[in-house]
Every structure is written in structure tokens, then in C-alpha cells.
């Protein structure tokens, strides 16, 4: 297959490139002539949703991105946040939704590869990874196959690369039947004075290509990632990229070695629309032109056209601008690691992006405008309709013990062990909390006491009911999960997964979710430092649940003062911190309603950000003071599920007394926000606990003593005692049982 460069540009061809007629007109105006075929490809790559953020840019700008610890916010390969001692944590989250639906193993694997590259491109060695996964209904015919492939793909790549997976999410909902979500997060450590950026500096310097050879992988991939799925999905298949973690691991080591030599001026990984996006970005950021000679590009297939080379998404490749006097040294590093190293271009002073091939100039475009002049839309949106509150007294009844057992053994809250045991969770030897708790925690290698916590969260059903509250809740839950380990939440990354933004109701979801996220980040001092937007997640006109995933990072000054979720000992006081006096009342959008009664009604729970902050700060202080022996925030399934998870984590039971004047269903299964369970090793009658309560009261936080740990049962008031072993069997059973009939 060869595609000539002098092909005629027809309206159909323009449409095939995902460009609207007015967008094409803009191209004509900008360059004053018809583009060559290669140029059309370059524009389509630069101006599609994925690279240009044309639908979301206006709203993303409203997010808080600054803070005393923020070294680099959005706009680079990853965000950079100061963690003290001249070190920084570098992190980002990115989606690989469409590729993972088409080929789950390779799609998810290359998603991991991409996010790891974003992190080590900046000079950071990856130290932690997470993955947030959303699949269709468990009984949908494709779900098992997708779960199995995606999990194996993430493991296959991450395990071989050698980064511990410390957390993530897995959810099932029929709204993802035709469009799963695979969001991958990675974080790396770097010295603050050795961070590398993509901005090229200096004229006449070599532009160097590193890593794997270029093939036809994913040609058109970036365009595909932004296109709505239709029934012609089969035809889009040949663009699948195959990951090579062995090459990525060598690329990591070679890049870090090369950076240490001082040879690197600018570096950019080749992700979506590989050579095009990376070269344009390096040049445009540095106010420089770039000239590429495609005859120098290492290729692994014959007769590749310039169009294909410019749009190839072959993995495990990097572009750098190097100090010319260090080129030989740089080449030696790459030869040691047996990776391709080729000088493929030069920086110029004319702000043009020029591409040469076999003696011809196949592209000559204004480099700044390629990015800066990309279309930006203020798409029309409509305000989401928020569901009415549940009628007074509308509390569907079920035996509390039966309900808890059903939820613990249901797809929403069952243990994800089946998933995370396929991931290497302890490589590097720094994992202090592996998946299964509130947040993953690693120690900072080389530091005696410092730790970092990671969590990924969003509750899509809340976002669907109320994108604004749902956006707030996603941030708050992430912040809460970090806090529950004793960490100080530092900053976050977001991965905004939505449907087709050309539909005003979807755009309305995006606008309101961003508003909620922004307000929560501001109130919780939790700036957004990087992120990714994935739109057009729909199949045949049905959008996914709005899913703005938040990945957060927290800092523990001393991991010896860190909380875990398992009850630590018998006879300890259990406090419910941050709850209303009724403990809980909010049943709207709860999993109690959804999973036990098939109801998806009612408003999403409200997040009181000021109260959230006060409560979290208080919880963290208690953990750091050493009085807390275990801590767990409440989320899906409310108080009952929270208690059960703490019991199951250690095998220790508990007895909790009912509030007599409150419906047990509400107090045990309400999903009111901003609540933590904590056990303390304090005498219930003693002064220390009294002092704790006085302090809470002064802060306006209610922290009642609701029960005591001990025994082998979980006793929720008047409900039948549930053996912890039975809860554990239910909790651990769902996933392996479900996947056991994988082939069926």
C-alpha cells in the first residue's frame, strides 16, 4: 500500500480526515493554497479533538493549576510537584479507551506504555502506576473478554517494564457496553533541577530520533481516538498498535542515562500522531522552525510514504534536540541499549515546519499556527436536569445483613484482587500499601521516612445524575482516600471521559463537571497539574456515563504514622468522623438502590467542600498524632460496606449500635459524603477521647463513637450478626467466580 503525495484533496478526503468544511477553509486561509496530502494528514492530526482539545480548552482553562508546590502544571508531558528535599513527583493520567475496545490486550498495554513514556520523558523514573477501568454490564457478551484482555495487557506491559501498580478502579455499567474506559496513571520521581521539557532552544541543532523503528501502526489512530464508534468498527481494526515493553524499558534506561550526560536540550515522546505532534510541539514551544528529513527516519516496513511516517503511532519512540558536541556520547548510550538513534532533522529560525522526502518537500507549514490556530469551539451546552429528591419515606426495605452480604458479594464492591494480583505490586521494593486499601503508598527511596500516596476516583453514576456535584465528589473522594492514609493531598491529574461534545447535553455534562472539579480543587487546595480529555465515547448515539477520573498524589512525611483500613485490634473505639447526627440519610444514586432494587433515581449526594476540608484535615492530624489505629473513608455502600471492608481486611469483627430514631437502611447504606471511619486506641471513658471530641466539636465536626472492634462477627445493631469469614467469602468470591467462565 502506498499513498502518493499528490493525491487530489476532495471534500470526501477532508471529511475522512475528521475535518469539518469550515476547518478545511481555515487551513486554506492559513496557508494560502491547497495542502498536500501529507499536509492534510498533519492538519488532521494536529486539529483533531485528541491533540487540540478544541471542545474542552475553553473550560479546562478555568481549572486551578497553581499552588506553592506546583513546579509544572498542564501543558507539558506530565505535571511536576515539589515533594521537598529537592525532589519532585511527576505524574499524569491518560486514556486508551478506543484502542482497548478494539484490541484489549494491545490497547491497554500501549496505554500503559504511553503514560510511562510521558513520565520518563521529563526525566523521572516511574515509581507507581494505577489504572481506572470501566466495562459494560457483567452479563454483556463482550465484558469478560474485555476485562481479561485489558487486565492482561496492563500487566503484560507494566510488569515487564517494572513499575509497581499501587491502585486503580474497576466498575461495570451497561453504559460502557460498547465503549469501555481504560485510564492509565503513572508517577515518577525526579530531582527538581533535572526536569526535562519539550521546548526546543537554539537554531541549527540536531533533531534526533530515538527508540523503536517506525511502522504503519495506528496510522490514523489519533483521528480514530476522537471518532465516535459506529457499526463499521471492524474496518478500523488494522490501525492497532503493538506494544513492546522490552524496548520501552531500554528506552527508559537509555533516556535517563542520556539525560545525565547533559546532552539533552529538549525531549518529547511520540504519542498520538507521533512524529507530527512531537516535532511541531518542540518547535512551536521554542519559537523555532523544524526541518525533518524522512529519509533518515528508521523504518521497519518497506515503501512507507511521508504521510504514513508523519502519522505513524508506532510505540516506544522519542524525539530530542541535542547539544551537537554531545551527539557522539548520546549515540553511544543508545547503541549500548541497542536502540535506534538517527539525526532526522534540524532546528531553524524561520518558524516553518518542513518535511523532506526523497528530494521533495512534502510539507511546509507555519509551525506556530499548526498548534495555536487550531480550531477552538465554544460548543453549545444545556444545563443538566438534576433528578428530584426521593419522596419522603421512600426507603425500600431489606434486611440489613442480607443487603450487606449482597453488596459485598456484588460486582460494585467485591474485591478487585483477581485484577491486581495480575499486576506486579511490589517491584522496586518500596510498596508500603498495595492495592486493596484506600490509597496505594510507596516510600520515597533513599529517604528515611517519606512516603507518597496515590488514588484514582470518580463515581460516574453521581456524575450522570448531577455532573457538577459528581465532579466535586470525584475530587473529594480522591482527596479523602489520600487523607485516610495520613497523607497530605498535593495535586491531581484528571482524565475527562465523556460522550459526543457536539450534543449540547453532553457538552453540558462536561461544562458542569469541570466546574465542580475546579471548585473542589480550589477548596481542597488540590490543584490539577496534568490531564487528558477523551470525548466521543459513544456507540450508536448512546453516550457513556460521564466519567471524569481524578488521580491524586499525597505526601506522608513519616510513613511510620500511616493508617491502613483493616481493624488493628479488638476492643477499640470506632468513630464515624464527619457524619451528620443521623449518620446518613442520602439514598439517592446509592448502590443500595441501584444494585438491590434496580433503581437509579434521586439526586447525587451533596459535597460540602468546606466541611470536607475541615474533616479531612482533622482526620489527618489524628493519624499523624498516632492515636488512629485504622482509617477508612466511606464511599459506595456507605457505613455498612465501610465497616465490612475494615473487618474483612484484618479478620477482626465489630459491634455497632443502631441509632434508634433512624431507619437502619439510611444509616447503614446512605452515601452521604465527607465521612471517615477511624479506630483509636483510646480509653472510651478517658480524657484523651474527651479532648478529641472537644476539638472536633470546636471545628464543627461530629465524630460519634458508634461501636467497638472485636469478635469474629460484624454486628450491625439489631441485624443478624454476620461472620467476618462469610463476608470475606462473598467479597473475595465475585470476581474469580465471574471470570471463571471466561470462555463461556
Amino acid at each position, binding site marked *: 500500500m502506498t499513498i502518493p503525495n499528490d493525491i487530489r484533496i476532495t471534500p470526501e478526503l477532508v471529511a475522512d480526515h475528521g475535518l469539518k468544511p469550515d476547518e478545511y477553509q481555515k487551513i486554506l486561509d492559513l496557508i494560502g493554497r491547497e495542502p498536500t496530502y501529507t499536509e492534510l494528514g498533519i492538519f488532521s492530526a494536529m486539529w483533531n479533538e485528541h491533540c487540540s482539545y478544541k471542545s474542552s480548552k475553553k473550560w479546562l482553562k478555568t481549572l486551578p493549576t497553581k499552588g506553592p508546590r506546583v513546579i509544572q502544571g498542564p501543558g507539558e508531558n506530565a505535571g511536576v510537584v515539589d515533594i521537598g528535599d529537592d525532589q519532585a513527583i511527576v505524574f499524569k493520567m491518560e486514556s486508551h479507551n478506543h484502542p482497548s475496545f478494539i484490541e484489549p490486550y494491545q490497547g491497554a498495554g500501549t496505554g500503559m506504555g504511553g503514560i510511562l513514556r510521558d513520565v520518563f520523558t521529563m526525566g523521572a523514573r516511574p515509581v507507581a502506576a494505577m489504572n481506572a477501568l470501566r466495562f459494560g454490564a457483567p452479563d454483556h457478551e463482550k465484558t469478560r473478554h474485555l476485562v481479561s484482555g485489558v487486565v492482561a495487557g496492563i500487566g503484560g506491559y507494566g510488569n515487564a517494564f517494572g513499575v509497581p501498580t499501587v491502585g486503580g478502579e474497576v466498575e461495570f455499567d451497561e453504559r460502557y457496553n460498547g465503549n469501555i474506559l481504560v485510564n492509565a496513571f503513572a508517577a515518577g520521581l525526579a530531582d527538581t533541577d533535572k526536569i526535562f521539557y519539550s521546548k526546543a532552544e537554539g537554531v541549527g541543532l540536531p533533531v534526533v530520533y530515538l527508540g523503536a523503528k517506525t511502522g504503519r501502526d495506528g496510522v490514523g489512530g489519533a483521528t480514530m481516538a476522537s471518532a465516535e464508534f459506529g457499526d463499521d468498527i471492524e474496518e478500523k481494526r488494522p490501525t492497532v498498535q503493538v506494544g513492546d515493553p*522490552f524496548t520501552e524499558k531500554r528506552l527508559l534506561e537509555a533516556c535517563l542515562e542520556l539525560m545525565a550526560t547533559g546532552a539533552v536540550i529538549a525531549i518529547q515522546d511520540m504519542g498520538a500522531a507521533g512524529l507530527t505532534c512531537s516535532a511541531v510541539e518542540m518547535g512551536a514551544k521554542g519559537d523555532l522552525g523544524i526541518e525533518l528529513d524522512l529519509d533518515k527516519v528508521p523504518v521497519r516496513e518497506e515503501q512507507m510514504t511521508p504521510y504514513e511516517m508523519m502519522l505513524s503511532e508506532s510505540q516506544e519512540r522519542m524525539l530530542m534536540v541535542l547539544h551537537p558536541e554531545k551527539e557522539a556520547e548520546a549515540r553511544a548510550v543508545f547503541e549500548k541499549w541497542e536502540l535506534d538513534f538517527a539525526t532526522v532533522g534540524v532546528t531553524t529560525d524561520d518558524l516553518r515546519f518542513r518535511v523532506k522526502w526523497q528530494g521533495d518537500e512534502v510539507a511546509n507549514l507555519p509551525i506556530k499556527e499548526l498548534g495555536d490556530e487550531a480550531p477552538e469551539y465554544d460548543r453549545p451546552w444545556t444545563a443538566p436536569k438534576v433528578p428530584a429528591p426521593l419522596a419522603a419515606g421512600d426507603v425500600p426495605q431489606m434486611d440489613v445483613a442480607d443487603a450487606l452480604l449482597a453488596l459485598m458479594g456484588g460486582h460494585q464492591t467485591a474485591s478487585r484482587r483477581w485484577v491486581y494480583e495480575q499486576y506486579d505490586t511490589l517491584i522496586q521494593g518500596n510498596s508500603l500499601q498495595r492495592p486493596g486499601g484506600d490509597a496505594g503508598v510507596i516510600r520515597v527511596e533513599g529517604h528515611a521516612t517519606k512516603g507518597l500516596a496515590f488514588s484514582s476516583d470518580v463515581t460516574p453514576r453521581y456524575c450522570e445524575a448531577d455532573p457538577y456535584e459528581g465532579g466535586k465528589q470525584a475530587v473529594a473522594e480522591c482527596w479523602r482516600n489520600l487523607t485516610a492514609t495520613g497523607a497530605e493531598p498535593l495535586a491531581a491529574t484528571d482524565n475527562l471521559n465523556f460522550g459526543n461534545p457536539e450534543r449540547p447535553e453532553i457538552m453540558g455534562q462536561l461544562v458542569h463537571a469541570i466546574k465542580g472539579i475546579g471548585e473542589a480543587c480550589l477548596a481542597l487546595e488540590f490543584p490539577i497539574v496534568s490531564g487528558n480529555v477523551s470525548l466521543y465515547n459513544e456507540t450508536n448515539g448512546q453516550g457513556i456515563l460521564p466519567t471524569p477520573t481524578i488521580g491524586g498524589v499525597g505526601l506522608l512525611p513519616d510513613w511510620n504514622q500511616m493508617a491502613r483500613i483493616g481493624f488493628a485490634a479488638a476492643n477499640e473505639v470506632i468513630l464515624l468522623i464527619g457524619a451528620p447526627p443521623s449518620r446518613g440519610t442520602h439514598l439517592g444514586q446509592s448502590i443500595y438502590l441501584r444494585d438491590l432494587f434496580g433503581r437509579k433515581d434521586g439526586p447525587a449526594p451533596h459535597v460540602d467542600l468546606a466541611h470536607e476540608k475541615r474533616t479531612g484535615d482533622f482526620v489527618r492530624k489524628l493519624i499523624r498524632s498516632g492515636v488512629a489505629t485504622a482509617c477508612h473513608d466511606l464511599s459506595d455502600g456507605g457505613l455498612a460496606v465501610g465497616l465490612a471492608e475494615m473487618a474483612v481486611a484484618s479478620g477482626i469483627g465489630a459491634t455497632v449500635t443502631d441509632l434508634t430514631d433512624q431507619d437502619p437502611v439510611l444509616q447503614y447504606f446512605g452515601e452521604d459524603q465527607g465521612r471517615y471511619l477511624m479506630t483509636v486506641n483510646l480509653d472510651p471513658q478517658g480524657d484523651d477521647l474527651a479532648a478529641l471530641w472537644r476539638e472536633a466539636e470546636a471545628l464543627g465536626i461530629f465524630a460519634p463513637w458508634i461501636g467497638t472492634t472485636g469478635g469474629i462477627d460484624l454486628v450491625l445493631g439489631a441485624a443478624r450478626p454476620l461472620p467476618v469469614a462469610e463476608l470475606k467469602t462473598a467479597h473475595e468470591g465475585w470476581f474469580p467466580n465471574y471470570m471463571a467462565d471466561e470462555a463461556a
Partner: protein
Amino acid sequence: MKARVTVTLKAGVLDPQGQAIEGSLKSLGFGGVASVRQGKVFDLVLDGTDEASARSELNSMCEKLLANTVIENYSVEITN
């Protein structure tokens, strides 16, 4: 009845395994190797004796499980 199913990567699909093997063969002194691509074979023993129906079963096994038709081709052969 015995059958062999051979599954190979489609042209153009990256084959990291093949590449690594190629590199290793070269460093072991096999200089004349221009390229290596790795695939799979499945040797099956089937009940039944009708070749035509076996063939169609095997094709359907490939489509459903043995091959990942997004990136792989397959071929089916009755070996006895």
C-alpha cells in the same frame, strides 16, 4: 483425526518477539538471517472422521478463540 492450526501475525504488525530472536540469532553468529516472525501452532486431536466438517469447526475455533483476527491470520490443515 489430527489437525494443525497455524496462527501468524498479519503483515505490518509489529513483532517484538521476532525482533528479539533475530537479534539473538545474529549475535550467536547466524549472520544470514534477514528477518524472523514468530507465530503459534496448535496441534489438535478431534473426534469424528468427516474432514469437511472438521475443517469448518476448526475455522470457527480460530475465529472464536485460537486467533486474534484483529492482528493475526490463521490457516488450518488436517494432518492425518
